[in-house]
Every structure is written in structure tokens, then in C-alpha cells.
């Protein structure tokens, strides 16, 4: 079956440092979505990328969709303690939804 892997699994950064998580799908995706889950919370939609090579920015967050539409990345510039949580990529396939394995971000003040 389809697999969506993310690296790293965990990341600890000092506040102010940058952070990147990488997402790789075993199959081509029609679109890629990113979600953030705070500890004890539910996944919250961040952004959707549709086009090959697409780049989108949300303030300090930069999202990229690979040319082959099989990988994606999320980069956070100058992390803040409010960035703490687990970041998941996700993609639809045949009316199913495949979430990545997630990257748990800890920001040390």
C-alpha cells in the first residue's frame, strides 16, 4: 500500500533556530497537505499544495511540493515556542487519506 514517510521523527531546536521536515510518498500525489497537531490536540490544516514545484509561504513557514509530486518540505524560520507540535504531511488517494509519520518539534526557550 501507499506509504508516506517523514524525517526526522523528532527535532529539538533552540528558539530562534530554523526547522525543516521532509515528506516522501511512495506514489505520486494529486496534492499534498500539511497539518499541525499540538500536544493533546487534533490535527489542524495548514496549507495545500497542488502544482508540481509549488512554493507557498505563511509568515515564517515555507512549504514546497516536489517536481515529481512525490515529496514535500516544510521549513520554519526562526522558531518560536508556539511552533511546538507534530507536523504531518498528508495526501489523498482513491478516496483515502494517507498521513505521513509526522515530525515532532520541540522548541527550547
Amino acid at each position, binding site marked *: *500500500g501507499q506509504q508516506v514517510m517523514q524525517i526526522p521523527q523528532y527535532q529539538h531546536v533552540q528558539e530562534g533556530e530554523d526547522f525543516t521536515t521532509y515528506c516522501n510518498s511512495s506514489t505520486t500525489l494529486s496534492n499534498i*497537505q500539511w497539518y499541525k497537531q499540538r500536544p493533546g490536540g*487534533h490535527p489542524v490544516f495548514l496549507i*495545500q499544495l497542488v502544482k508540481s514545484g509549488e512554493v507557498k509561504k505563511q509568515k515564517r513557514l515555507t512549504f514546497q511540493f516536489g517536481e515529481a509530486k512525490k515529496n514535500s518540505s516544510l521549513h520554519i524560520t526562526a522558531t518560536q515556542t508556539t511552533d511546538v507540535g507534530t507536523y504531518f504531511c*498528508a495526501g489523498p488517494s*482513491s*478516496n*483515502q*487519506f494517507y498521513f505521513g*509519520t509526522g515530525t515532532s518539534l520541540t522548541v527550547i526557550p
Partner: protein
Amino acid sequence: EPEVTQTPSHQVTQMGQEVILRCVPISNHLYFYWYRQILGQKVEFLVSFYNNEISEKSEIFDDQFSVERPDGSNFTLKIRSTKLEDSAMYFCATPTRGTDTQYFGPGTRLTVL
């Protein structure tokens, strides 16, 4: 953000018992999803439900599971005979109109003893 509510927030049950988890999605939405998240792990797709029928289901969604929309608004996930490994957070989600981006409910934490 559109609202999806789930009840109960926490359910404790004995192994072998039946549980029913409830979701009240955004009104007039026809497409719903159920997901499971075992503690510390990724979100796993269980089933999608469109216009009162199962649209797609994963390997996890075996005969022990069923979904219904009993009264046109609530959306339920039933586990007939719970096992220890069913302990997890269960999330209901619905997509925004015209997209497949998911709005999640707050989840129900199921603990099977």
C-alpha cells in the same frame, strides 16, 4: 474554522464491549471521514462516508467496525467487540466544500481495559 464536535471526549470500556463514538459534523456536509491515532503514532485513515454510504475503507476497518448516520446529523463509529489494541484517539473529519482538506473534530480518546 468550521466546527466539528465529537462525543464523548473520553470513553473507557472493558475488552469485548461495544462502543459507539459520535460526531456532529458541519451542517449539510455529505462527506465524512473517521481516523484513528494510537498514542504517539501517525493519523490512520479508517473510512470515508459519502451520502450515507461507505465510500472507501482501509485494512484497519474490519468487520468489527461500522459507521452510520442514524438521524441525518450525527455520524457514528461503532466498534462491536473492543480489543486492547483499539485504544486510541478517534477523530472525525469533514472536508471543506469543493476541496479535500480535512477539518478535524477534537477527538474521542478510547481506552480499552
